[in-house]
């Protein structure tokens, strides 16, 4: 039979930080789409499961000159020498050759958490406990995404369940390529301010490819050389200056400005 190759796509995002108002719709939509369980009483910022995690970052000025932005952070889909993929002893992480998506297969994971250490963006989360939903909410899980047991790592996969649905629809119509309008990740769809643009970075005609090249677009920690496919954008200089810094603050900064 003949070899079948599809056009290689490189899915990426550009997030406009000037538009993000920290409403949290994206985080909730992500959790619902991907069957991420709600927090148990003992969960907190450190041990919770937030595939899409939003931080509030300020410019360290004093009132009333202080400004904040909200930074949604999730798997940046590193393209080059993907740290989590490189360290996984189980080959539970791989970069899909046709879409560029860094896929996490929780069923293969043995829970060593090496990938969590390796990820520069703290975008990977460990199931410290078994997922708990009420009996009724268990019937409301998304049938396109498998739930995970405790002891495995999970992270954003650019809503692969929706990619499956888009590919399936295209195939049933006889197409090898999906219709881009059919593949929209939950966060992109739910943002009221349309702060997230998503699409194929390889296709010059898409909004996302153009936005990524904009002079005000940047990537976090690009100095690490992992070539993440998630870009951020801001008109504000102080926001762009954050790009190479770590997001934690010292005691000094916290209390004395």
């Amino acid at each position, binding site marked *: 039979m003949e070899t079948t190759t599809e056009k290689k796509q490189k899915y990426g995002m550009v997030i406009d930080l000037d538009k993000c108002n920290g409403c949290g719709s994206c985080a909730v939509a992500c959790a619902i789409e991907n069957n991420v369980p709600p927090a148990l009483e003992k969960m907190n910022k450190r041990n919770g499961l937030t595939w899409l995690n939003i931080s509030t970052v300020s410019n360290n000025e004093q009132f009333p000159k202080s400004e904040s932005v909200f930074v949604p952070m999730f798997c940046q889909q590193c393209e080059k020498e993907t740290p989590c993929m490189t360290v996984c002893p189980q080959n539970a992480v791989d970069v899909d050759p046709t879409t560029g998506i860094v896929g996490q297969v929780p069923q293969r994971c043995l829970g060593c958490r090496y990938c969590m250490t390796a990820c520069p963006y703290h975008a990977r989360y460990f199931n410290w406990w078994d997922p708990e939903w009420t009996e009724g909410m268990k019937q409301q899980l998304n049938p396109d995404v498998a739930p995970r047991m405790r002891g495995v790592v999970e992270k954003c996969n650019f809503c692969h369940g929706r990619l499956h649905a888009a590919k399936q629809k295209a195939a049933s119509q006889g197409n090898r390529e999906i219709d881009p309008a059919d593949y929209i990740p939950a966060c992109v769809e*739910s943002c009221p301010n349309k702060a997230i643009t998503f699409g194929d970075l390889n296709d010059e005609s898409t909004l996302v490819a153009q936005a990524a090249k904009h002079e005000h677009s940047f990537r976090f920690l690009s100095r690490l050389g992992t070539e993440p496919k998630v870009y951020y954008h801001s008109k504000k200089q102080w926001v762009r200056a954050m790009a190479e810094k770590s997001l934690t603050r010292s005691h000094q900064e916290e209390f004395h400005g």
Partner: protein
Amino acid sequence: MAKTLTRRDILKFTGGGILGLMFSPLPWKLLDDSSIWTQNWGLTPKLAHGPIAEQFSHCTLCAGGCGIKARTVSGMPYSITGISGHPISYGTVCARGLAGHHMAYHPLRIVHPHMFTGKGSDSAMTAVSLQSALDATAQHIRETRGSIAILDQQPGRAISEIYKEFLSTLPNGIFLSSPSNEDATLLAIQAMVHQQKSSYGFDFENADLILSFGAPLFDYWGTPGRMSALRNAGTPKIIQVDSRYSRTAMQSDEWIAIQPGTEKYLALGVAHLFLTEKLIPVRNLRSAADFAAYGKTVNEFIPEKVSLLTGIDSGRVREIARTLASSQRPIVVSGADPGGGPFDGETEKAIAALNILLGNVGTSGGIVSRFDIPGYKNSSDPIRWSSIPDHSIGVLIVDGADSGYALPWSLVQRKLIPNEGFIVSLAPVLNEISAHADYLIPSPGHLETLQDIPTPTGFPAGTFALSTPLLKKQEGTTDSVDVIRELSVRLNKQLEIPTQEALLKQKSAALFSQKRGSLHIPSDNSILPIRDLSSADDLWTKLTEGAVWIDELLKQTSVKSFTIGLAAVEVPNPKQGTNELPMIAYGWRGATSTAQISPIMSKVFQETELRAVNGTVSVNPTTALQYGLSKEEPADLSTINGTMKVRVKVDPTVRPGVIEASIAPLPNGIETPKHPAGNNILNLCEVTNDGTWRMTTAKFLKV
């Protein structure tokens, strides 16, 4: 050969058996199966199978009226998204609505009538029959010496009219709703207008400037989708006067940081400039019958005085006045943050009066009047809690809908007769108010029963939609309309109360006979004029399939006569050297403690601290230093109403000398039912005589 079997033989046999097994698939298959078994154990839920479909409905969790599209598997919704092209919500559903399908199965969901016995930590919930709950309620209604009140936090629905009808048959029935927030300006203006009362809305889409006094326009005000569509369009320009660096302040074109509690002085200062610098036509001033008294009131609020009171530079005050006056179509809106509740009456009047001076009432791009929705009685009498005498309510029935706004229990408690006040809650989920109830007669929850979705607050035209149920109604729950019918029968009132479906069909039929307006059809994003429908049944069918009706815009006639009613405004003397700080209670509409939210919203609270839970206070680093506060230790916050342990956040965006206290939601409030409910910053707020709790002073106790 020996006939007896020795131990050695058995061992040989076993050894041979094991060797044989090695050459069979058994050990390898067992290994494979066991590893699969460890992954499939019962603690991980299994996914549903079945046909995947799409259904349209509307969200009932607040009065926003957003259209929703649900994806279902075997009929069970598993995902909610917006309807793009929806004329009210523009494809957006807020975070609370996205998880709306969870509410039916919330951990605190009540699906059977219950009675509360005992008090405090000894209290217990006992299941009772519906009949006994209704009998007890009717008994109390008959025997109470106080008034009978129904608290409806989403007034304007069909059920609200049933409540009013029922209350009118009682000797002292009172219809209550939550102190208004989003429609505060509109209601203030309505009270000022001389002519026949009309419903008003904000024509933001045609305005070019909005001056907002603390209204959380971009943080779930009105219909979130409508506001973000405006934001995305880039007009109108927004000037946000806010005592906090709120999300709206962040997204606005200009943030004016104001000392909390001084909003009215700024409004009066702007009015002063309007008059003294002749920035507005004189006829606008003269449209107020009491313009002389009003002029006298604003006279003393010169920019320098305003600057001193509000902390805003006087030059900036002048700029605001000039910008506002020179805009073609400006609107001034207040409504404040849902956590702190509405502004006091004087502040609302001062802010609303600016619209009158700008002459935008009854003009396109301003405050527009709209047709009443056919079939609805459209009464618009705001209930002021201040007009209800303290300790006068004998029976309180709390309707199941929540506004998504805060309502301090202390305000409700104040109006109840102590030790005699009898509370029945119709809420489907145990929440802050229902946790104080004596009886629970739960109604079906969101998406479990047919509901009407009347016009959302501030919308420039009337709208009507249905929330079609997507879930099966759970046995043991009772529609509120049925509860009222049962009570009226027990009390021998001759009232014809239809079922929920019949009631809403009546409304739909009234809509059809009016022949005005058009339907937006969600499945194909098309618009269908009502005139083109064949029958009332056709309209009903389309409404149940998720369509929304939008009225025609009413041709505007500029309103020319008002009475403002602001005779004199006192400026209190500044407090000398206390360690009491103004406390700004803030929340997030939809999660402000009278409402329950899906457990999945922990992504936004507990697991990220993107939003603070109840019991978190934020202070500026200088304030923290001054009072020895740090995020490492809880502090003791004290107000006139008590003391509470709070978590401290040190935030440079907070105004120095001010405490920002979050009241939304209760930490782990999504998991823990308590009767009465646990400690809540909202109860620390001081409720004034006019039913507002915005201005509280608090201090940190030295540990």
